[in-house]
């Protein structure tokens, strides 16, 4: 029996991305376990994985001290369970686990696979930040059997910086989207209407939606600013998600005088009806791996406005969406106006 351990920094990542993988390989009779932190936040992880091992680590690769305390436990678990493959995701978990297993990898013939969901160094990052993250990737690359990247820029960077040996870099198109679930024909019109009614958005009013955590790199401020500059007073904006910036963004919407048309929906388990109810989805990030909310919107046949960065450009180039420069509210405004003026 093949044994696989999937590793992520927090349990939410398992819930958001890896449940279909656990299902797929467990259906083949494989043992599929997970190693993560904060399992209590998403206890459903225990249904999808045979064993869920809890460790504690920080989310930032720059504050690794807490994570080292888990090193001994990780080594014991991997040694005892005799995994064939350890597949690591997210920067902290990926770095620490690869460090811990650097010896066991050879002695126990464990294959270590790392999926980089967007490198933390990029053309938009500062020189210091880029230098730190690139160095960490180079060091950990020596302990990696296969590296999976999910956008063209990262594939280029992995080869340019020789992050793993030649022939060990794979460019996959993200983690995949379930097109049966994100099927526009599966969302009844009355459900879509209910979403609009729930926000008091008239049927004829344009609606933009954003599905993104309220963190700086998602650049919600740009969207709110551009939204406030629209000439159409009946346009609405729905923001699904949560995160530390939410109170400040609510205050900013008030300051801009648009709070009555900006809807903070909190975390949504199912965003399909919201996206279908929208004239376009907007993602204004300055850093992405391969943006899943865009893939979901594309599958639901709803137009997308996205920033021209790696991981969004891959999806929207060739006219599959409207690309705007990151941090440019004027371009964002023009794109929103274009969507309003060209509803079909």
């Amino acid at each position: 029996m093949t044994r696989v351990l999937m590793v992520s920094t927090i349990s939410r990542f398992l819930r958001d991305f890896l449940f279909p993988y656990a299902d797929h390989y467990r259906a083949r009779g494989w043992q599929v376990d997970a190693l993560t932190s904060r399992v209590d936040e998403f206890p459903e992880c225990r249904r999808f994985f045979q064993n869920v091992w809890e460790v504690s680590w920080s989310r930032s690769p720059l504050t690794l001290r807490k994570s080292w305390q888990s090193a001994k436990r990780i080594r014991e678990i991997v040694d005892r369970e005799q995994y064939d493959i350890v597949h690591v995701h997210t920067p902290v978990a990926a770095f620490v686990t690869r460090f811990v297993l650097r010896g066991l990898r050879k002695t126990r013939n464990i294959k270590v696979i790392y999926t980089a969901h967007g490198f933390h160094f990029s053309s938009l990052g500062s020189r210091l930040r880029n230098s730190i993250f690139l160095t960490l990737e180079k060091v950990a690359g020596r302990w990696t059997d296969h590296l999976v990247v999910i956008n063209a820029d990262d594939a280029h960077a992995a080869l340019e910086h020789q992050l793993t040996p030649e022939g060990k870099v794979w460019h996959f198109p993200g983690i995949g989207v379930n097109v049966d679930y994100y099927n526009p024909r599966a969302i009844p019109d009355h459900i879509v209407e209910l979403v609009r009614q729930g926000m008091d958005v008239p049927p004829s009013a344009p609606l933009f939606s954003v599905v993104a955590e309220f963190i700086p790199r998602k650049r919600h401020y740009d969207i709110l600013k551009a939204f406030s500059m629209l000439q159409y007073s009946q346009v609405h904006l729905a923001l699904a998600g949560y995160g530390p910036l939410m109170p400040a963004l609510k205050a900013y919407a008030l300051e801009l005088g648009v709070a009555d048309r900006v809807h903070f929906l909190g975390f949504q388990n199912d965003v399909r009806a919201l996206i279908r109810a929208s004239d376009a989805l907007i993602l204004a990030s300055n850093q992405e791996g391969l943006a899943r909310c865009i893939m979901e919107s594309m599958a639901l046949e709803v137009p997308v406005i996205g920033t021209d960065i790696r991981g969004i450009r891959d999806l929207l180039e060739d006219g599959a969406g409207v690309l705007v420069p990151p941090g440019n509210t004027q371009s964002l405004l023009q794109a929103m106006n274009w969507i309003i003026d060209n509803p079909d």
Partner: protein
Amino acid sequence: MGIVGRQQVMTTYRQEYVLALHDHLYATALGEPHSFDIPPIEPVTAMP
């Protein structure tokens, strides 16, 4: 062709396709033969 029309042709992002790619990757990592019905994909060895 409009935006939505272009979106519909982007089938490589489908979950079943990406799962098949993982099947291929895992089999390669384990040194096992594999016969999955997916388009040929090999590790990236040249600048894209």
